[in-house]
Structures are given as structure tokens and as C-alpha cells.
């Protein structure tokens, strides 16, 4: 059932030329240089330290690595991170990281 609805939504998005994040409820990541990062549609913090921030997503995790990371603002949908960002990695559920 889930797969059918997801397929339908994906099809609608392609037909109507909608951005994927709106249609599929995927996280949208906006990064400004290596300094600021905004993640929309996250599902909570899994781990936070000055070197890494792991966020939960619908189908997996996302890891932001860097130095002196600070969460400037956090809301139910949105996280705004500042610091020296070095990498963003997505770990999709059921697959090996990479």
C-alpha cells in the first residue's frame, strides 16, 4: 500500500513538474559555503557533538561533520547549524553508508 502511494506521488510530481521535496516529504538541505546549513523536514536529533551532528530522516539518517558545530536554531521541522562544516553524509536505511 505504501509503495503504491509513494509511486503515485512520485508520478504526480513528475507530471506536474513539482520539486521532489514538496511531493515526497524529503529533507531539503541548504548549505551556504562551509559555514551554514539548514535542514528542513528532519525527524529529530540522534547525536550531537562539536564534531558531528546526526539527524534522523524518514528513511535513514544524515550526518553533518565539521568543527565547532553550533545549533543556532531548532524547530520541529527545521535545524539551522553553524560552524566549520566539512561533510554531509546520507545513510539510507538498509544500505551501507556511502
Amino acid at each position, binding site marked *: 500500500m505504501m509503495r503504491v502511494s509513494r509511486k503515485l506521488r512520485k508520478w504526480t510530481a513528475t507530471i506536474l513538474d513539482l520539486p521532489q521535496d514538496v511531493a515526497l516529504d524529503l529533507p531539503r538541505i541548504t548549505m551556504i559555503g562551509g559555514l551554514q546549513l539548514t535542514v528542513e523536514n528532519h525527524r*529529530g*536529533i540522534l547525536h550531537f557533538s562539536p564534531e558531528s551532528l546526526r539527524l534522523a530522516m524518514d528513511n535513514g539518517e544524515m550526518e553533518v561533520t565539521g568543527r565547532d558545530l553550533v*545549533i543556532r536554531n531548532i524547530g520541529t521541522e527545521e535545524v539551522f547549524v553553524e560552524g566549520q562544516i566539512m561533510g554531509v553524509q546520507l545513510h539510507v536505511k538498509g544500505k551501507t553508508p556511502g
Partner: protein
Amino acid sequence: MRANWVAYARGYVWVKLIGKQSEAFVNAATRERIELWDISFGRAGELTFGVSIPDFFRLRPILRQHGCRTRIISRHGLPFRMARLSRRKTFAAGMLGFVLILFILSSLIWDVRIEGSSAIPEEKILQAAKAEGIYDYQWSFRLGNAATLSQRLAQRLPEAAWVGVEKKGTSIKITVVDSTKPEQKKLEGPRHLVAKTDAVITKIVAENGRPKVERNDRVRKGEILISGILGSETDQKAVVSKGKVMGLVWHEYRIATPLETKTKNLTGESQERKYLIIGNRALQISGYGNSAFDSSEIRTTVQRAQLWQRLLPFGTMKEHELEVVEIEKILTPEQAKEAGLSQARAELLAKCGPESTIKAENILHEQTENGKVMLTVLFEVEQSIEVERPIF
């Protein structure tokens, strides 16, 4: 929300979190829609963040759930300021006092000014204004509005045609416009018009009263020309006699005119000397040397230094020395006679009044003696001869 004025108004605290499950705590806080900002790790590895005061109290159950504790690092915002201010009583009182004094002073009338060129003395206007409650250091709010004030002030000043009261801040301007009045007539008592001197009447016009003389009558000094008494012997009334009486009057004049006249003339040559004044001493600055002129006239101008209205004991003095030459003029007896006569005519007309005219002149005697021309002249002058004499 961070560090803007809303946060400042509500007040916020910097908090240090002590506990293990910091991520879970942050997630729980977000789920409760509690806003945390600037979440970062301190040196010792503990989480610090900012939170507004109302949100801080809502954090408590979440903290208990996750077995965490908080420690406040610093407090910011208006509520804390106010709390601190309430501890400093004198300071708060001073602030309040300042506002209060400013309010009190600005609700006083500091200045009452009177404008408009009015014949009514300013003292009287001020007195009337005072009676209506307009005076210096009066409370501004005790005054009525300007329209009624000006109306009532106008009632107190019947001489004024219009009174305007204008309030501008802490000063009041009263404008008074005079009503124009007819000219006041001089008070006159009943009187006669009598002759000033012996004369022959040439013209008599009586506006009021009864004329007693006619044209070509000879009158003596003090004779009644126009009588102020009307009516018969038994039934009479005294009035203010008015009129115009012209008469011929003889004046004898003795004139002595010198044949030699000396006049002082300026040659146009001049010298200037400048001095510096200190107290009552003068120090010469320029124009040294003796005077180059035989006879001269010195004109001095003193310029004292002034500080506002006060004269200072310093200044400069300028001496202007002008060369003078005396010119002697020798007249012939004819010229001297003519000069003497014209001077006598001018004097006579000035003495007899503006309406007088010289009708004739007779030289009775003429003699040249000791460099002078001596003349005796009889002038016949037509002039007004009436003078008032009151009837008692």
C-alpha cells in the same frame, strides 16, 4: 527570536545542561515547541543553550524525564533589569522624580508676554490678566481655554477692541488691539477775545460770540474784539467766543549792522592724530610733530570699547585738526543796510506768527557811525491780534 527585541522584552537565560541524554532532551524540547537557540558544547563537554524565561519553566518536566539538571549561566532582558532596578530604590525614585519634575515644570506658565502697540498701559493689562488667573508660575491646567480667556479679558479691558490670548507651550501671549476713539476736545470755558496790541482792524470773522468792532476801527490793547456774553442786560449767557481778527500793527525796530564781518573758513587742509585710551590717559599713536597750521579747529571723536551694554575703560581717540582761515569782508553802507533789513524782516515774521505779512516799512533814521550802520525802521505788519480772556 534570538537576541532581538522580543527576546529582550521577554527575558532570556543562558543555560548549561548537566546530564547524559542531551540529544533526547533537545528532541523532546522541540516536540513541545520550546525554542532553544545557540545550542553548543562548552569546554567541559556540557551543552549550553539560550531559552526564553517562559520556556525555561516549561522545560522542567522534560528535564525530570531525562534525568537532567540545568544551571543558569547568565540572565538577559528586561524582566531582570526591572528586578535589578527595583532593588535600587533611590535610582528608581530619581528616574521617577525626573519625569515628575519635568512634567510639573512643563505644566507651569513661565512667561506672560503682551504684544500689540496699545495705549493701555502694560501694567493694567497684566493686572487684568492676573485677575483672570494668567500670571507667571501659574499652573497651565488651571487656565481655561484661550477663547473664553480672551473673552473674559476683553470684558475687563473695555478700552480694547479685541483681546487675543495665545498659549504656546509654557508661555502665554496676550495681544491687545485698541479701539479707536474720537479725539478729545479741549475743555474751554466762556471767554472773550481781546486785542493783543494797539492795532487797526483789517478783518474780523466771528465764529462764536458777538463782534464788538468793525473793519478799520482802531483798538487799544485789551479791548474786547469778540464778546463771549450774549443776550440782553437782564438775560445773558456766557459762551466760548471764537473767531479770527486780523489787524495792522506798527513795530519800531532799531538795527545796527557792522560794515566789517569776519568769517571763519576751512581751507580743507587737515591733520589726524590717533590716541589709545586707557582709563583717563591717552597715548598718542600717530600724527606726531607740531601743528603745521597757524589757526585751526580740532574735532575729537572718542571710541570706547563696549562689552554688551557696558563701556570698557579702553578705546581710541581720533583728533582731526582742520586748518582755519579768517576772511574779512567789508560791506558798503548800502549792502549793510539791506542785510540788516532782511534780518529784521525775518525776525519780525517769526515773532508775529505764520499768518502775518509785512505791509509797509519806513526807514525813520539812518546813520553810519564807528564802522556800523544804525537804522530805525517802522514796520507795518498785518497779523492776528486776538487773545483769549476768560469770563468769570
